[in-house]
Structures are given as structure tokens and as C-alpha cells.
């Protein structure tokens, strides 16, 4: 359902103090991200910077595999804070996203109370207290001592009802539990929402957010990403890999390979000890399994096509 992962990395590698030339904050953020291994395009870095400085949620839209989720993880690392992740799916409701009472404990407690002869009003007050409340990601995110990064992943998979609920939380960062009253936010989380166009999002949600469209990276950016993530790959092969994947994206495919797939592809080649993409057609065809994920796509890229693309990239 939801998973929470902590990024405990401290700001070890960051320079102390400001650089000698005054650099604007957003460049600094871009550099920080890059130090943690995320190469962000200018408009994405700027959108993130503005979202952070204005305290607005950031809505990232783009095809699958362009690094939308990854930026939240990197941001948590940069800010040395926790990442709270809420994966959306159809039918997600408040009990799974905000809070739930711990029913088992409540039952036990009522039983014990009735045996001890406790008055009903007291029991009721006790079992509907903070102690019996199970925090779910959204409530958890606003009750952290240091502001966490809240990642609401694939918001377009959740239904409209959840979107409406989310709007309420994102605008005033309070949660109302009928039995407890209104719980205000201790800190305001840095909210990142991602969507990949399964469903059209409501205008209200779009307007609440700072928007950035994340596209497949251009050649230079993708090379930089590859160099960051797989520093062992030599420049010539890296150029070939990126060229190959970039031209593969132009082919008519059902699932266009994203950055993650490109990295898998590079790792596979590195693992097999390949240093020239056009060298061995059999190995190339085998490693395509990391890039092409459907039967039809595999059929669309027979060895000849793969060879042609590899030859072009070389």
C-alpha cells in the first residue's frame, strides 16, 4: 500500500558556506541535486525551487520513466529529511491515506475497561485518543518535527474523490478527525505530486500546484545522467548507448524506454563487459530486454533494426 523510506544521508559532500561568486538559489539547488546524482533540466530545477520557496506543491507530469519519482527521493537526500511516499491507486480512501483507528487495540481496551468497571464516557474518551490513532502518510507528513518530502505518486490513478480530499489537505495542511478535532500541521511538508496522464487532472488541483513537465532528456542531459549514475562506462560506449536509446525513442513503440530503462541497459552492457555496441548483434539483441518491455515492441525491433540504430549511434 504505502511505503516509507528514510533517507538518512547527511549533507556530507556539500561545501561549507556559500561559493565565492554569488549564485542564485535555484542554481545551487540544481547543483545539490546533481551532487546526489540527479541531473535536473533548468525548468524542472526552477519549478522545484519556486515550489520550495513559496511552499506550494509541485506537480510533475511526463511519460513513465523520466525520473519523476526519483526527484523526490533526491530532494529528500539533499534536504537530509525523510521521504514519505503515498502510492496512489484506484479506490484509495481516507482510511488508507490519512488516518485509521487501531480497531484491535480499541476492542481489547474496551473489553478490559468493562471488566474493570470503567464508565462508558471515560472508555470512549480513552479509545478515541491519539494513542489509538494510526497515522497514514498524509497525517504523518504534517506531524513530523522536520519538514519531510511528501511524494504523492501517480495521482492520476486515484479517483476524483481522493483528489478532492487532497486539495483540502494541500491548501491548509490540517486534518480533522471528528473524535479529536482539528490537527494542525507541525511542519509543512515539501509536496511533490507526479502524474503520467492516465486521467486528466482537475483544474483545481493544477492551479494549486507549481507545474513542470518532465520530458525525455536531450542527448547532453542524458549523457550527464549516465555519467553520474554509471561513472565506470567509458565515454565512447556512453555516447553509443545514449545515441541508441535516443533513436529508439523515435521508433514507433508501445512503451518508449525511459531514463531508468536506459540505465538498466547501460548496466547490462557493463555487466557483460561490452565496449562497443555494434560489435555483437546477439548480445545487443539480448540486452534489448532491458529497453523493450512488450512482445509487440520486441517484434518491432528485429536484429536488423537494432543494428541499424546501433550503427547510427556509433
Amino acid at each position, binding site marked *: 500500500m504505502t511505503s516509507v523510506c528514510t533517507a538518512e544521508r547527511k549533507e556530507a559532500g556539500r561545501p561549507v558556506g556559500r561559493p565565492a561568486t554569488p549564485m*542564485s538559489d535555484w542554481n545551487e539547488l540544481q547543483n545539490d541535486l546533481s551532487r546526489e546524482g540527479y541531473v535536473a533540466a*533548468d525548468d524542472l530545477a526552477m519549478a522545484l525551487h*519556486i515550489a520550495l520557496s*513559496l511552499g506550494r506543491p509541485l506537480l510533475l507530469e511526463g511519460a513513465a520513466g523520466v525520473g519523476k519519482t526519483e526527484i523526490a527521493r533526491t530532494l529528500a537526500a539533499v534536504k537530509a529529511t525523510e521521504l514519505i511516499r503515498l502510492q496512489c491507486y484506484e479506490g484509495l480512501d481516507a482510511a488508507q491515506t490519512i488516518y485509521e483507528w487501531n480497531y484491535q487495540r480499541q476492542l481489547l481496551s474496551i473489553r478490559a475497561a468493562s471488566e474493570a468497571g470503567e464508565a462508558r464516557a471515560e472508555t470512549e474518551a480513552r479509545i478515541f485518543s491519539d494513542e489509538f490513532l494510526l497515522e497514514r502518510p498524509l497525517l504523518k507528513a504534517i506531524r513530523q518535527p522536520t519538514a519531510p518530502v511528501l511524494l504523492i505518486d501517480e495521482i492520476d490513478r486515484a479517483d476524483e474523490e481522493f483528489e478532492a480530499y487532497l486539495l483540502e489537505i494541500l491548501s491548509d495542511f490540517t486534518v480533522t478527525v471528528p473524535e479529536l478535532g482539528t490537527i494542525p500541521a507541525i511542519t509543512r511538508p515539501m509536496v511533490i505530486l507526479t502524474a503520467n496522464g492516465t486521467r486528466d487532472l482537475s483544474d483545481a488541483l493544477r492551479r494549486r500546484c507549481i507545474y513542470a513537465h518532465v520530458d525525455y532528456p536531450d542527448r547532453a542531459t542524458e549523457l550527464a545522467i549516465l555519467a553520474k549514475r554509471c561513472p565506470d562506462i567509458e565515454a565512447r560506449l556512453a555516447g553509443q548507448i545514449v545515441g541508441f536509446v535516443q533513436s529508439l525513442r523515435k521508433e514507433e513503440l508501445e512503451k518508449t524506454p525511459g531514463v531508468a530503462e536506459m540505465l538498466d541497459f547501460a548496466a547490462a552492457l557493463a555487466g557483460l563487459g561490452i565496449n562497443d555496441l555494434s560489435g555483437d548483434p546477439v548480445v545487443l539483441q539480448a540486452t534489448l530486454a532491458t529497453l523493450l518491455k512488450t512482445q509487440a515492441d520486441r517484434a518491432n525491433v528485429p536484429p536488423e533494426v537494432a543494428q541499424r540504430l546501433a550503427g547510427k549511434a556509433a
Partner: protein
Amino acid sequence: MSRVTRFAARDPGIAPRVAAFLDHLRAQGFHVGVAETDLALSALSHVACADPAQARLALKAVCAGCADDVARFDDLFDAFWMNEGRVRQRAMPSQTSGEMQHMRSTREDRARRADGSGIAEEPEGGDGDGETASEGTGKLVASQLRNLMKKDMREIVSPEDVRRAERVARDLGRALRDRRSRRRHAARKGAQIDFRRTIRKSLSSGAEPFKLARRNRPDRPVRITALCDVSGSMTLYAKPFLAFLSGLMRADPDSDAYLFHTRLVRITEALRDDDPLRALNRITLLADGFGGGSKIGGNLNRFARSYARKFVNGRSVVLILSDGYDSDAPDLVGAALKRLRKRGCRVIWLNPLKSWEGYAPIARGMSAALPHLDLFAPAATLDDLAALEPELVRL
């Protein structure tokens, strides 16, 4: 590098200029309001706003709301701040339709509506009159656009038809909805227990949950997506079908409608216009080429690749209203429907010719489509459509 725009001395501050810029964006169909102006100003205070590159990125992050906005933003920014001559942004519907995949539905119409009012900041505000006229008559611009329109939709569909169609559409929608809920019921073996209420109730009986409160899922509405063929061979049947579409749009806020002949046009927003007649007026503008040739395969394919990715899911019913006479290759229809079915939707094809005696689906496009259909039924009039209700329930 283009020159930075010079501003009149009477608006010296940054605030009025940013406000004017947002006005400019609004005129081009961006969904920005007063809140965004405020947001834009505070965003600029967090960057070095004297640097055009930074200001551009910052304003883009604040003002753009979807992929299409992002794509157009740079030109609009240049047109306003960089004084880069007269950049013509607004394209006629006939030209834009090819690139509409990533557009949000309301864009085109809103842009036109806003332009009609002649915003002063817009560089080419002067040529707004042609557009203004389009609101009024429709025919004038239609002829200016040199389109092939032979009929005015208002002559085809009367408001009474729309009202009647609205009823039919509502009934059909309900038929589909009921079916959906039954299926859910059968699949739900162990209904959930509502712990929250159960525990509260059990307090009075000393933690003994005698009464189990249960939870039931509400019925989920089905989303109807209708594609109507308005090519030459369908002219006779256009009337009931268009009435049905506009009734459907009014009856069901989740439904979606498209017209196709040689091109595919999304008419959902146009049909939702408050005034039914004006809605038809707007369709008149969108549907240039009405009564022309038909490219069913190509259009369905385009639909499956563009709009369907966004609007069609497992809860959708795609309703195709066409006679199946196609000038595209027949296997294209089959491939398009196959792709569409992959999204989990159900496909219903209503063919006006099927009610003819001795009709066999031998039109190449039609026979290629048959294996992919959930229901292939005759429908030539509104009454036929109304009679479909039991069929849909059974589906």
C-alpha cells in the same frame, strides 16, 4: 537576442506588467487567475527577476498548467516581454486539430471566446473582429475559413430534439450504470465490515460487537465516449445522432463526444455550452468538412492513440455511430479497435444501416471491426437509440 519590450511610462512598476502578462496568457487560453498573478509576483521575488532567462523559467513554472501550456509558453513570453514582432499564436481549429493530442479539452474554445473580447495587451488585438463575428453567426467565419461545410447544424437539430435526446441519453446512461453495479456486487464476496461504526456501537454492549456495521461500495458511473461519423454517407442520420450527442453531454457530465469525417474533432466542451443552440453553433465551426469523405480507420486510430490514452479506461464505454463505409484500409479499423480494447473499455458500434432488411456487414471497414465489438446494433433514429436500453443492460 531580441530586444526587451519597452513599456509605457504610466505603468512603471513590475506588478502591473506581470498582471498584463497574465492577462495576455489568459487571452491565449491559459487557466490563470488573480491568484496566479499574486503567485507569479512572489515567485519572481525568489529569483533574480532582472535576468530574462530566470524570469522566464519562474513564470513558466507558475503559469503553465499542462504539457500544452509549457510548449506554447516560450513564444508567448517572447511576444510579450521580448517584443519579438507579431507572433501569431492563435491558429484556426482546422489547423490545430492535427496537434491536439496533448491539449486540454477547453483550450480551443476558451481561446476563441477570450479573443473575441479583444484584450488590449494582445499585440494583434486588431484582428479580433472576425472572431467576434464567429460567436454571432457562425456562417460568416465558416465561409472565411473556406470550409466545405454544407449544412448548418442548427438546421439539422432543433432544441426539442436535444431535450428529447437528453432523456434518451440519460436512460441509456442509467442502463449502463446498473449493469456495472451488478457486476461489482457479484465479484464482492466478503463485504467489508465498517470497524469504525462497529466499535462505536459495541461500546454500549461492553465491547461485544453484536451488531456488525458493513460497508458497501457505491455504484461507479460508466463513462460514455461517443464517436459520431458525419461523413457524406451519414448525412441522413446526422440529425438524431447529433441530438443524441448533445443530449448525452448535458445529461452526463462524465461523457465525452467526438465527430469525425476526414478528421477527428473533440466536441465535448462545445456541446456543454450552457445554451444548446450556441453549442450547436460552435459545432458548426468545429465540423468543417461535414458531409465529406470518411476515414474511419485513420480517425479511430488517432483517437486510440491520443484522446483514448487520457479519457478511456476500464470504466469507459466507447460508442461508435457510423455506417462503416470507410475510405481507409480496412485493417486499420481492426487495429485501432484492438488497441482501444486494450484499454479495458467496451466498444459498441451502432450502425444505421443494420436495421435495413437483408443488411450484411460487408463494408470492408465494418467487417474488420466486427470481431472487436461488444455490441453491434442498429440505430437510425432517436427511438432506435431509446430501444437499445435493454440491450445495454444485458451487455
